[in-house]
């Protein structure tokens, strides 16, 4: 009983599991999940076999877009997404870092033309040893993922 998750099951929606502890609140903020007005259940610092501690987010009546999944994969590459239908896991997939992230973040370069013109931001993603870098298609500058997301 002590190890049982104290987080309520949802009927339909998405469960983001295995989020590294501390990243959950950042994901809530980055994806603006609270503004959805859907029922959200969150767990922070929950016990985890793989991560020791993990965060978990359950969002009712909501599937994630490709752009949101890209953002998630950048900040919680170890996370898994569970699609829930009628209290049952209908689909389950692991995150993978995308080659391109479009329309998800603004370019941190304040002089980049993408800020003032009718185009979506567009970054190519490059994995480095201890970092993920995003290179803006327009200004060609590379930034650490943390700078891009300003988390």
């Amino acid at each position: 009983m002590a190890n049982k998750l104290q987080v309520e099951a949802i009927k339909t929606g998405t469960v983001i599991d295995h989020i590294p502890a501390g990243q959950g609140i950042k994901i809530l903020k980055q994806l603006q999940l609270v503004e959805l007005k859907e029922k959200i259940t969150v767990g922070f610092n929950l016990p985890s076999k793989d991560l020791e501690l993990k965060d978990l987010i359950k969002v009712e009546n909501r599937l994630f877009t490709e752009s949101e999944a890209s953002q998630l994969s950048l900040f919680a590459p170890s996370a898994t997404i569970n699609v829930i239908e009628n209290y049952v896991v209908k689909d389950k997939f692991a995150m993978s870092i995308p080659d391109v992230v479009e329309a998800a973040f603004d370019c941190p370069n304040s002089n980049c033309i993408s800020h003032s013109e009718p185009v979506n931001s567009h970054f190519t993603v490059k994995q480095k040893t201890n970092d993920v870098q995003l290179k803006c298609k327009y200004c060609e500058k590379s930034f650490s993922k943390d700078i891009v997301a300003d988390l």
Partner: protein
Amino acid sequence: MANPLYKKHIISIPDLSRDEMELIVKTAAKLKQAPDTRLLKNRVIASCFFEASTRTRLSFETAIQRLGGTFIGFDNGGNTSLAKKGESLADSVKVISSYADALVMRHPQEGAARLASEFSSVPVINGGDGSNQHPTQTLLDLFSIYECQGTLDGLHIAFVGDLKYGRTVHSLTQALAEFGCRFSFISPEALGMPEYLTDDLDEKGISYQRCDSIEGVVDDADIIYMTRVQKERFDETEFKHMAAKYILNLETLNGAKDNLKILHPLPRVDEIAVEVDRTPYAYYFEQAENGVYAREALLALVLNEDI
């Protein structure tokens, strides 16, 4: 078969293959030897300079006229509809590209040329976008190196000065890496080559070293590429101390190889002593002249299927 640059946008050096850069360099050499006034006959080129750039603009406009073309445009963004009426760059480019056969653009914001290429119906040539790319400068540098060394392969290039903010240095390094050149980077620590560029060199297995002074490499370098260290970035004492290491004079050139040539994107202030101008090593004024031929080559290639 159409040349590979026909109808292509020229935005950034990493977009160009080694073969394409060689084609531009060889076409520039050909046009320098034998001008062809028919290559841009009946062509109108839009010369859109949203910020001042005397040498780039004048060399483009000279190139257009020498190949028999005409140009429309402006030399200052302040009087355009963008500035006066708030029109987007995207809309401006859509309209201007419907008037002209190609569009040469300089803009103070990074990424402006890439954006323009997405909205233009004709080839866009980047004449400089903020601190990002200035590919035509790189192509004229490549042409100058080819002209004075007879090859682009396997040379030792020493870059001196402000390597942190110098976009010409960044693009030229990217281009020469395709030709197996090796590099020496000579700069104050605070103005060193950015890590993302040296990371790229590491990935490609290109040899480079960071050095303290020009004297350390002068006996082995084929090209010394000088750039200006801006005095305002340092206090006076610090600058005087640095000057000894990063200013080129006759003494610095003791022991130089016969084939050494000195390049500089200009304008020069005091980083190359005037006495160096009279040595056989000085090549920066030929380099500036070559801007016309490199830009002739680009315009001719993007607007002529066969050349």
